[in-house]
């Protein structure tokens, strides 16, 4: 459904209101500050990214998985499903929807085990990835229900390519796309994919890239866009804030403590 964003479930159901989003997070924000909450999501976005790369998935699939993850917790507390289980489940579902071809159950679990052990030992120490295929499959049904079966996610990559093509008539610089593409990837660590349409995120990423590269001469191009510049500014600010946060944040040191603080699922009462 690369067709019509305006008639999509993404546009109609999944561009959320900032206040609503904030309100629905209150349960988790009783345990974590907003910044800590963001750091937790930053961490799980990394897990999804690394899992996806290990499974040789395209960035589009990884981005979709990340959006599934964020959508689930936009409506639910971190307590409901262990994010360490939901993250690979999102990857699994997205790979099917985005027609990558089915990842075999055993390959998914093995990859989770290796990734957690080799790349995220700073967070999980010697603990092994605790889940098996049956957990992922059970979790997948809950995920699909909570997504209200909205599986097609529009990403900023395609509009970004179109904008860069358009700019190309005025300025020849391959760096712009490289920078903007990375900024879009980074934007997955923020809430912007829940709050703004993908084309606005693409424009914002392009805007930041131009500023970074000192492309002042593109100002008229931005001015001519028929787009709500206030929204673009909000997105730019959110992404810049992320970069600011990264400057003073050492995930390797802090994440164990943060994971310890997140609300955990409660088991069935003992009879």
């Amino acid at each position, binding site marked *: 459904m690369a067709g019509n964003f305006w008639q999509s479930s993404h546009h109609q159901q999944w561009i959320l209101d900032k206040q609503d989003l904030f309100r629905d997070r209150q349960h988790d924000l009783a345990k974590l500050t907003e910044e800590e909450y963001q750091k937790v999501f930053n961490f799980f976005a990394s897990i999804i990214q690394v899992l996806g790369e290990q499974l040789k998935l395209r960035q589009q699939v990884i981005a979709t998985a990340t959006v599934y993850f964020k959508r689930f917790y936009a409506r639910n507390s971190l307590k409901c499903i262990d994010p360490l289980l939901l993250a690979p489940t999102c990857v699994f579902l997205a790979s099917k929807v985005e027609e990558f*071809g089915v990842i075999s159950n055993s390959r998914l679990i093995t990859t989770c085990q290796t990734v957690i052990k080799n790349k995220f030992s700073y967070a999980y120490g010697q603990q092994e990835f605790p889940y098996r295929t049956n957990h992922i499959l059970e979790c997948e049904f809950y995920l699909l229900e909570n997504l209200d079966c909205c599986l097609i996610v529009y990403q900023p990559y395609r509009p970004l390519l179109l904008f860069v093509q358009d700019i190309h008539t005025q300025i020849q610089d391959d760096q712009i796309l490289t920078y903007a593409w990375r900024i879009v990837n980074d934007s997955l660590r923020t809430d912007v994919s829940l709050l703004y349409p993908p084309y606005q995120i693409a424009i914002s990423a392009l805007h930041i890239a131009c500023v970074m590269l000192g492309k002042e001469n593109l100002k008229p191009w931005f001015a001519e866009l028929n787009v709500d510049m206030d929204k673009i500014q909000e997105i730019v600010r959110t992404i810049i804030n992320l970069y600011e946060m990264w400057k003073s944040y050492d995930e390797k040191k802090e994440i164990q403590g943060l994971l310890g603080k997140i609300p955990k699922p409660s088991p069935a009462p003992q009879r």
Partner: protein
Amino acid sequence: MADNFQNKTMASVMMDYEFKMKTQNERSKVEDLFDFEGCKVGRGTYGHVYKARRKDGSDTKDYALKQIEGTGLSMSACREIALLRELKHSNVINLIRVFLSHTDRKVWLLFDYAEHDLWHIIKFHRAAKANKKSVMVPKGMVKSLLYQILDGIHYLHSNWVLHRDLKPANILVMGEGPERGRVKIADMGFARLFNAPLKPLADLDPVVVTFWYRAPELLLGARHYTKAIDIWAIGCIFAELLTSEPIFHCRQEDIKTSNPYHHDQLDRIFNVMGFPQEKDWEDIRKMPEHATLVKDFKRSNYQNCSLSKYMDRHKIKPDSKAFSLLQRLLLMDPNRRITSEQAMQDPYFSEDPLPTQDVFAGCPIPYPKREFLTDDDQEDKSDTKARQNQQQQQPNTQQNQVQANNHDHGANNAKRMRMAGPNQGNNTGGGGQQEFHQQQQMMFGGQQQGAGNQQQGNFQQRF
């Protein structure tokens, strides 16, 4: 420090108990909301389809409940849900709701119920033809059907969705009700997005499309599916509507081959269309199986074959607008085949009779309703028929009987007549159909006058 580190062997709690209970209580079960026991109307590789009614009586509409084959979310189930969730067009089947049954891990899809499909409609006409009976339908019915198929496919194509498995059984037609006589394109299980596919589409699953409706470029090993492939299938369906015979009928061998090259099917296409000239399809030499084609086929064997001769034998005049459109849909070169949009602009559709929203144009519907299948019916699917069922994804077992008959295509009529036997004996269907048919004929005759009758006369011969 985190709980995680206190005990390495402790199994993590994956899901919150309260959350689990809450969602379980909120989740409706399909069997609590709908009555459908004993109401199976379809069976295929995709799963089972039931005719269902709401238990609470909040409406008395019929629904179609499709239980997807297997358990859990297969890739094709995922795609079907993902795409249908987004698509909205009057000629594309409407997904109302998805039920996930956690206990047996079954996936159910709820749709509006379509009483008819082109597979059954064409079968009905074939049977009538074999029995030298006529079927009374409005003269513009084929045109209306084709127009709505094109409309639906145009919508899919403009949304970057390919159907990829178009065939009569997947073209549904609504029965009595607010959407009477409306075409609904269904079975999107294999539908593909084709805007920048992440993998060559041909890699994803081995050959799945019924061979009869497969475009020649697929049979010659084309790696990417295109809009033109759907258009070819529509051309095949159009021809079949005009003649009641599958235009590229071919004996079907074991279809579970990963090799797209299919000698007999190509032979059949050339027997109807003639062997393609270099100038008609320049890129044919670039096809992966071109060398095999050159080795296996001799142009001289097809010298007297052409689409116009084939259609003329079936009483479609080469100078008719219908034929001219058919020829544009069935061009061998995929690059020259027309688009759905161009097809909808064809003069055929501006010629009287104009296409109607209700393909039955308000006239009585001569086709029988779907019959319920019993589980015993499945035993009928022995040996080769089971295979066909798999290939064809036919809506029910009755079709297999006609399929068997199709094998005898080209044989004498006496053989074809036999088809009526098992059908009648099978259940109330066969006999009922005849009765129904005659009754309709009478009613229809009473309603229409003069010129109308003559037009119907023409139609009967053709359909």
